[in-house]
Protein backbone atom coordinates (compact mmCIF):
# COMPACT_ATOMS: atom_id res chain seq x y z
CA UNK A 1 0.00 0.00 0.00
CA UNK A 2 1.41 3.36 -0.99
CA UNK A 3 2.24 5.89 1.64
CA UNK A 4 -0.24 8.74 2.10
CA UNK A 5 0.51 12.29 0.97
CA UNK A 6 0.38 13.43 4.58
CA UNK A 7 3.01 10.91 5.67
CA UNK A 8 5.27 11.77 2.75
CA UNK A 9 4.93 15.50 3.46
CA UNK A 10 5.88 14.98 7.10
CA UNK A 11 8.95 12.97 6.11
CA UNK A 12 9.91 15.54 3.47
CA UNK A 13 9.63 18.33 6.03
CA UNK A 14 12.25 16.51 8.01
CA UNK A 15 14.59 16.61 5.02
CA UNK A 16 13.82 13.20 3.53
CA UNK A 17 14.25 13.84 -0.18
CA UNK A 18 13.18 10.32 -1.11
CA UNK A 19 9.78 11.12 0.35
CA UNK A 20 9.64 14.28 -1.70
CA UNK A 21 10.68 12.33 -4.80
CA UNK A 22 7.68 10.06 -4.23
CA UNK A 23 5.41 13.10 -4.08
CA UNK A 24 6.86 14.51 -7.30
CA UNK A 25 6.39 11.22 -9.11
CA UNK A 26 2.79 11.19 -7.91
CA UNK A 27 1.89 14.65 -9.19
CA UNK A 28 4.26 15.32 -12.11
CA UNK A 29 1.85 14.19 -14.81
CA UNK A 30 -1.06 16.27 -13.55
CA UNK A 31 1.07 19.38 -13.31
CA UNK A 32 2.60 18.79 -16.73
CA UNK A 33 -0.73 18.73 -18.50
CA UNK A 34 -1.91 22.01 -17.05
CA UNK A 35 1.42 23.72 -17.65
CA UNK A 36 1.71 22.56 -21.26
CA UNK A 37 -1.76 23.75 -22.16
CA UNK A 38 -1.54 27.00 -20.24
CA UNK A 39 1.83 27.97 -21.67
CA UNK A 40 1.73 26.23 -25.04
CA UNK A 41 5.34 25.13 -25.04
CA UNK A 42 7.04 22.19 -23.45
CA UNK A 43 10.16 24.05 -22.40
CA UNK A 44 8.15 26.67 -20.54
CA UNK A 45 6.04 23.92 -18.99
CA UNK A 46 9.11 22.03 -17.78
CA UNK A 47 10.41 25.22 -16.22
CA UNK A 48 7.28 26.06 -14.28
CA UNK A 49 6.75 22.49 -13.07
CA UNK A 50 10.33 22.33 -11.87
CA UNK A 51 9.99 25.73 -10.23
CA UNK A 52 6.72 24.74 -8.57
CA UNK A 53 8.30 21.61 -7.09
CA UNK A 54 11.23 23.58 -5.70
CA UNK A 55 9.03 26.31 -4.25
CA UNK A 56 6.69 23.78 -2.73
CA UNK A 57 9.53 21.91 -1.03
CA UNK A 58 10.92 25.10 0.43
CA UNK A 59 7.48 26.09 1.67
CA UNK A 60 6.35 22.72 3.01
CA UNK A 61 5.83 24.19 6.46
CA UNK A 62 3.14 26.38 4.99
CA UNK A 63 1.21 23.39 3.68
CA UNK A 64 -1.42 23.46 6.40
CA UNK A 65 -3.27 20.38 5.21
CA UNK A 66 -0.65 17.80 4.26
CA UNK A 67 -3.35 15.35 3.20
CA UNK A 68 -4.30 17.92 0.53
CA UNK A 69 -0.74 18.39 -0.68
CA UNK A 70 -1.79 17.83 -4.30
CA UNK A 71 -4.27 20.70 -4.29
CA UNK A 72 -1.78 22.98 -2.56
CA UNK A 73 0.93 22.11 -5.05
CA UNK A 74 -1.44 22.68 -7.95
CA UNK A 75 -2.21 26.15 -6.67
CA UNK A 76 1.49 26.94 -6.68
CA UNK A 77 1.71 25.73 -10.27
CA UNK A 78 -1.26 27.83 -11.37
CA UNK A 79 0.40 30.90 -9.90
CA UNK A 80 3.71 30.07 -11.56
CA UNK A 81 1.96 29.71 -14.91
CA UNK A 82 0.44 33.17 -14.45
CA UNK A 83 3.87 34.61 -13.71
CA UNK A 84 5.42 32.86 -16.70
CA UNK A 85 2.77 34.25 -19.02
CA UNK A 86 4.02 37.74 -18.27
CA UNK A 87 7.49 36.95 -19.47
CA UNK A 88 8.89 36.56 -22.94
CA UNK A 89 8.58 32.91 -23.66
CA UNK A 90 10.98 30.70 -25.46
CA UNK A 91 9.66 28.66 -28.30
CA UNK A 92 10.07 24.96 -28.66
CA UNK A 93 8.11 22.36 -30.44
CA UNK A 94 6.88 19.49 -28.33
CA UNK A 95 9.78 17.07 -28.42
CA UNK A 96 9.50 13.36 -27.97
CA UNK A 97 11.40 11.59 -25.24
CA UNK A 98 12.12 8.66 -27.48
CA UNK A 99 15.65 7.78 -28.52
CA UNK A 100 16.63 9.62 -31.65
CA UNK A 101 15.83 7.53 -34.68
CA UNK A 102 15.37 8.21 -38.32
CA UNK A 103 12.66 5.64 -38.80
CA UNK A 104 9.56 7.29 -40.22
CA UNK A 105 6.75 7.71 -37.74
CA UNK A 106 3.34 6.24 -38.37
CA UNK A 107 0.78 8.24 -40.26
CA UNK A 108 -1.55 8.09 -37.27
CA UNK A 109 1.13 9.57 -35.05
CA UNK A 110 1.78 12.45 -37.45
CA UNK A 111 -1.93 13.10 -37.79
CA UNK A 112 -2.23 13.09 -34.02
CA UNK A 113 0.62 15.59 -33.70
CA UNK A 114 -0.97 17.84 -36.31
CA UNK A 115 -4.26 17.65 -34.46
CA UNK A 116 -2.65 18.48 -31.14
CA UNK A 117 -0.84 21.40 -32.77
CA UNK A 118 -4.16 22.76 -34.00
CA UNK A 119 -5.64 22.27 -30.57
CA UNK A 120 -2.72 23.96 -28.83
CA UNK A 121 -2.90 26.90 -31.25
CA UNK A 122 -6.62 27.30 -30.60
CA UNK A 123 -6.06 27.21 -26.85
CA UNK A 124 -3.26 29.73 -27.23
CA UNK A 125 -5.60 32.18 -28.91
CA UNK A 126 -7.95 32.23 -25.93
CA UNK A 127 -7.51 35.02 -23.39
CA UNK A 128 -5.44 33.64 -20.53
CA UNK A 129 -8.19 33.92 -17.94
CA UNK A 130 -10.61 32.01 -20.15
CA UNK A 131 -8.03 29.36 -20.98
CA UNK A 132 -7.24 28.88 -17.32
CA UNK A 133 -10.88 28.59 -16.29
CA UNK A 134 -11.66 26.21 -19.14
CA UNK A 135 -8.74 23.92 -18.30
CA UNK A 136 -9.46 23.90 -14.57
CA UNK A 137 -13.10 23.02 -15.08
CA UNK A 138 -13.21 20.78 -18.13
CA UNK A 139 -9.76 19.19 -18.03
CA UNK A 140 -8.87 19.10 -14.34
CA UNK A 141 -12.49 18.46 -13.34
CA UNK A 142 -12.67 21.16 -10.68
CA UNK A 143 -15.98 22.42 -9.38
CA UNK A 144 -16.66 26.15 -9.54
CA UNK A 145 -16.34 26.29 -5.78
CA UNK A 146 -12.86 24.76 -5.98
CA UNK A 147 -11.95 27.15 -8.78
CA UNK A 148 -13.18 30.10 -6.77
CA UNK A 149 -11.00 29.07 -3.86
CA UNK A 150 -8.00 28.58 -6.11
CA UNK A 151 -8.27 31.69 -8.29
CA UNK A 152 -10.06 34.14 -6.02
CA UNK A 153 -12.43 35.04 -8.86
CA UNK A 154 -16.19 35.16 -8.42
CA UNK A 155 -18.12 32.07 -9.44
CA UNK A 156 -20.26 34.01 -11.93
CA UNK A 157 -17.11 35.31 -13.62
CA UNK A 158 -15.61 31.83 -13.75
CA UNK A 159 -18.76 30.41 -15.32
CA UNK A 160 -18.71 33.11 -17.96
CA UNK A 161 -15.04 32.49 -18.74
CA UNK A 162 -15.61 28.75 -19.14
CA UNK A 163 -18.60 29.29 -21.41
CA UNK A 164 -16.84 31.86 -23.59
CA UNK A 165 -13.77 29.67 -23.87
CA UNK A 166 -15.86 26.66 -24.91
CA UNK A 167 -17.76 28.71 -27.48
CA UNK A 168 -14.59 30.16 -28.96
CA UNK A 169 -12.81 26.81 -29.07
CA UNK A 170 -15.78 25.22 -30.75
CA UNK A 171 -15.77 27.94 -33.41
CA UNK A 172 -12.01 27.86 -33.95
CA UNK A 173 -11.86 24.10 -34.28
CA UNK A 174 -14.94 23.74 -36.46
CA UNK A 175 -12.89 23.29 -39.60
CA UNK A 176 -10.28 21.11 -37.99
CA UNK A 177 -12.37 18.32 -36.56
CA UNK A 178 -11.47 15.07 -38.21
CA UNK A 179 -12.63 11.50 -37.83
Amino acid at each position, binding site marked *: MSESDADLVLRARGGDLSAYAALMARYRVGLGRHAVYMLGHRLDAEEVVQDA*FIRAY*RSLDRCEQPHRFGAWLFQILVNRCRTMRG*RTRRRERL*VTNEPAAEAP*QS*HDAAESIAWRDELARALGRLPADQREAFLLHHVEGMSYEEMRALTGARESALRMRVKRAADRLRAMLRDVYVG
Partner: protein
Amino acid sequence: MSDEDRHAEGDARFARVLNELRRPIDLGPEIDARVLRALREDPRPARAMIAGGPGKWRRSPWGVAGIAAALAAGIAAAVWIGIPRARRAGEQRPAAGATRAVEFVLRVPASRVSLVGDFNNWDPEASPMVRASDRGVWAVRIPLAPGRYRYTFLIDGARWVPDPSEPPAVENDFGTPTSVITVSYGST
Protein backbone atom coordinates in the same frame (compact mmCIF):
# COMPACT_ATOMS: atom_id res chain seq x y z
CA MET B 1 -24.34 19.30 -14.44
CA SER B 2 -24.96 22.93 -15.36
CA ASP B 3 -26.32 24.18 -18.67
CA GLU B 4 -22.92 25.18 -19.95
CA ASP B 5 -21.52 21.82 -18.96
CA ARG B 6 -24.22 20.07 -20.94
CA HIS B 7 -23.59 22.38 -23.84
CA ALA B 8 -19.89 21.57 -23.83
CA GLU B 9 -20.14 17.87 -23.18
CA GLY B 10 -23.16 17.25 -25.37
CA ASP B 11 -21.38 18.08 -28.57
CA ALA B 12 -19.86 14.83 -29.76
CA ARG B 13 -17.12 16.57 -31.71
CA PHE B 14 -16.27 18.83 -28.83
CA ALA B 15 -16.03 15.77 -26.61
CA ARG B 16 -13.09 14.69 -28.74
CA VAL B 17 -11.35 17.93 -27.88
CA LEU B 18 -11.93 17.31 -24.18
CA ASN B 19 -10.72 13.72 -24.44
CA GLU B 20 -7.54 14.89 -26.10
CA LEU B 21 -6.96 17.57 -23.49
CA ARG B 22 -7.55 15.16 -20.64
CA ARG B 23 -4.82 12.80 -21.77
CA PRO B 24 -1.98 12.87 -19.27
CA ILE B 25 1.20 14.68 -20.28
CA ASP B 26 4.31 13.43 -18.58
CA LEU B 27 7.17 15.88 -18.95
CA GLY B 28 9.49 13.12 -17.78
CA PRO B 29 11.23 12.03 -14.60
CA GLU B 30 14.20 14.19 -15.57
CA ILE B 31 12.34 17.07 -13.94
CA ASP B 32 12.28 15.22 -10.62
CA ALA B 33 15.98 14.49 -10.94
CA ARG B 34 16.79 18.14 -11.64
CA VAL B 35 14.70 19.28 -8.67
CA LEU B 36 16.41 16.81 -6.37
CA ARG B 37 19.84 17.91 -7.56
CA ALA B 38 18.91 21.54 -6.94
CA LEU B 39 17.55 20.76 -3.47
CA ARG B 40 20.62 18.74 -2.53
CA GLU B 41 22.89 21.57 -3.63
CA ASP B 42 20.82 24.20 -1.86
CA PRO B 43 18.36 22.68 0.60
CA ARG B 44 17.60 26.08 2.11
CA PRO B 45 14.04 26.23 3.42
CA ALA B 46 12.04 29.37 2.73
CA ARG B 47 11.31 30.04 6.38
CA ALA B 48 12.81 31.86 9.30
CA MET B 49 12.01 29.11 11.81
CA ILE B 50 13.64 25.72 12.01
CA ALA B 51 12.52 22.57 13.75
CA GLY B 52 13.69 22.43 17.34
CA GLY B 53 12.24 19.14 18.49
CA PRO B 54 9.05 17.12 18.32
CA GLY B 55 6.17 19.51 17.95
CA LYS B 56 8.29 22.52 18.80
CA TRP B 57 9.87 25.34 16.92
CA ARG B 58 12.67 27.62 17.89
CA ARG B 59 14.12 30.72 16.43
CA SER B 60 16.50 30.26 13.61
CA PRO B 61 20.06 30.86 14.73
CA TRP B 62 20.22 33.23 11.77
CA GLY B 63 17.92 35.62 13.69
CA VAL B 64 16.95 38.66 11.64
CA ALA B 65 19.42 37.62 8.99
CA GLY B 66 17.61 34.32 8.72
CA ILE B 67 14.31 36.05 8.16
CA ALA B 68 15.89 38.23 5.51
CA ALA B 69 17.37 35.13 3.90
CA ALA B 70 13.99 33.48 3.85
CA LEU B 71 12.45 36.51 2.19
CA ALA B 72 15.32 36.60 -0.25
CA ALA B 73 14.62 33.00 -1.17
CA GLY B 74 11.50 34.10 -2.97
CA ILE B 75 13.42 36.78 -4.83
CA ALA B 76 16.17 34.34 -5.64
CA ALA B 77 13.64 31.91 -7.04
CA ALA B 78 12.19 34.65 -9.22
CA VAL B 79 15.64 35.49 -10.52
CA TRP B 80 16.49 31.84 -10.94
CA ILE B 81 13.99 31.33 -13.69
CA GLY B 82 15.72 33.97 -15.76
CA ILE B 83 19.03 32.13 -15.79
CA PRO B 84 19.81 30.34 -19.04
CA ARG B 85 18.71 26.76 -18.65
CA ALA B 86 22.07 25.20 -19.36
CA ARG B 87 23.65 27.12 -16.50
CA ARG B 88 21.18 26.28 -13.78
CA ALA B 89 22.20 24.41 -10.68
CA GLY B 90 21.61 20.74 -11.02
CA GLU B 91 21.18 20.86 -14.74
CA GLN B 92 23.71 18.99 -16.76
CA ARG B 93 24.63 19.04 -20.36
CA PRO B 94 24.15 15.69 -22.08
CA ALA B 95 27.05 13.63 -23.19
CA ALA B 96 28.70 14.71 -26.41
CA GLY B 97 26.76 13.40 -29.37
CA ALA B 98 23.51 12.91 -27.45
CA THR B 99 20.48 13.72 -29.57
CA ARG B 100 16.74 13.89 -29.26
CA ALA B 101 14.22 12.84 -31.87
CA VAL B 102 12.33 15.88 -33.03
CA GLU B 103 9.18 15.55 -35.06
CA PHE B 104 8.36 18.25 -37.59
CA VAL B 105 4.81 18.22 -38.87
CA LEU B 106 3.18 20.57 -41.38
CA ARG B 107 -0.30 20.59 -42.80
CA VAL B 108 -0.14 22.03 -46.32
CA PRO B 109 -1.46 21.10 -49.77
CA ALA B 110 1.64 20.13 -51.75
CA SER B 111 3.18 17.40 -53.86
CA ARG B 112 6.61 17.64 -52.22
CA VAL B 113 7.81 19.14 -48.93
CA SER B 114 11.31 19.38 -47.50
CA LEU B 115 12.60 20.49 -44.14
CA VAL B 116 15.63 22.75 -44.40
CA GLY B 117 17.60 24.41 -41.66
CA ASP B 118 20.84 24.91 -39.82
CA PHE B 119 20.90 21.20 -38.97
CA ASN B 120 21.14 20.08 -42.62
CA ASN B 121 22.97 23.02 -44.17
CA TRP B 122 19.70 24.17 -45.75
CA ASP B 123 19.93 21.28 -48.20
CA PRO B 124 16.49 20.64 -49.80
CA GLU B 125 17.45 17.03 -50.48
CA ALA B 126 18.61 16.22 -46.95
CA SER B 127 15.30 15.94 -45.05
CA PRO B 128 12.38 15.21 -47.36
CA MET B 129 9.09 15.07 -45.50
CA VAL B 130 6.77 12.09 -45.83
CA ARG B 131 3.12 12.45 -46.67
CA ALA B 132 1.52 11.31 -43.42
CA SER B 133 -2.13 11.47 -44.38
CA ASP B 134 -4.39 12.26 -47.28
CA ARG B 135 -5.39 15.42 -45.45
CA GLY B 136 -2.23 17.24 -46.37
CA VAL B 137 -0.15 16.33 -43.34
CA TRP B 138 3.60 15.99 -43.92
CA ALA B 139 6.08 14.81 -41.34
CA VAL B 140 9.70 14.00 -40.75
CA ARG B 141 11.62 13.04 -37.65
CA ILE B 142 15.28 13.92 -37.27
CA PRO B 143 17.79 13.57 -34.44
CA LEU B 144 18.99 16.89 -33.05
CA ALA B 145 21.62 17.64 -30.47
CA PRO B 146 20.65 20.24 -27.87
CA GLY B 147 20.91 23.71 -29.33
CA ARG B 148 19.11 26.41 -31.24
CA TYR B 149 18.30 25.92 -34.92
CA ARG B 150 16.70 28.06 -37.62
CA TYR B 151 14.55 26.18 -40.10
CA THR B 152 11.76 26.47 -42.62
CA PHE B 153 9.75 24.27 -44.96
CA LEU B 154 10.28 24.18 -48.73
CA ILE B 155 7.04 23.50 -50.58
CA ASP B 156 7.24 21.92 -54.06
CA GLY B 157 10.82 23.05 -54.34
CA ALA B 158 9.82 26.68 -54.76
CA ARG B 159 7.89 28.16 -51.85
CA TRP B 160 9.37 28.79 -48.39
CA VAL B 161 6.95 28.53 -45.48
CA PRO B 162 7.84 29.08 -41.81
CA ASP B 163 6.41 26.74 -39.19
CA PRO B 164 2.88 27.93 -38.39
CA SER B 165 3.27 26.35 -34.93
CA GLU B 166 5.84 28.96 -34.10
CA PRO B 167 5.72 32.75 -34.32
CA PRO B 168 7.53 34.42 -37.22
CA ALA B 169 11.04 34.42 -35.89
CA VAL B 170 13.95 35.73 -37.83
CA GLU B 171 15.15 36.28 -41.37
CA ASN B 172 17.79 33.89 -42.52
CA ASP B 173 20.80 34.89 -44.53
CA PHE B 174 18.78 34.70 -47.73
CA GLY B 175 15.88 36.84 -46.51
CA THR B 176 13.56 33.88 -46.13
CA PRO B 177 11.14 33.79 -43.20
CA THR B 178 12.23 31.11 -40.78
CA SER B 179 11.28 29.57 -37.48
CA VAL B 180 13.47 28.72 -34.54
CA ILE B 181 13.54 25.54 -32.50
CA THR B 182 15.41 25.12 -29.25
CA VAL B 183 16.24 21.59 -28.22
CA SER B 184 16.77 21.68 -24.51
CA TYR B 185 19.39 20.26 -22.25
CA GLY B 186 18.55 17.97 -19.41
CA SER B 187 15.69 16.08 -21.03
CA THR B 188 17.48 13.61 -23.18
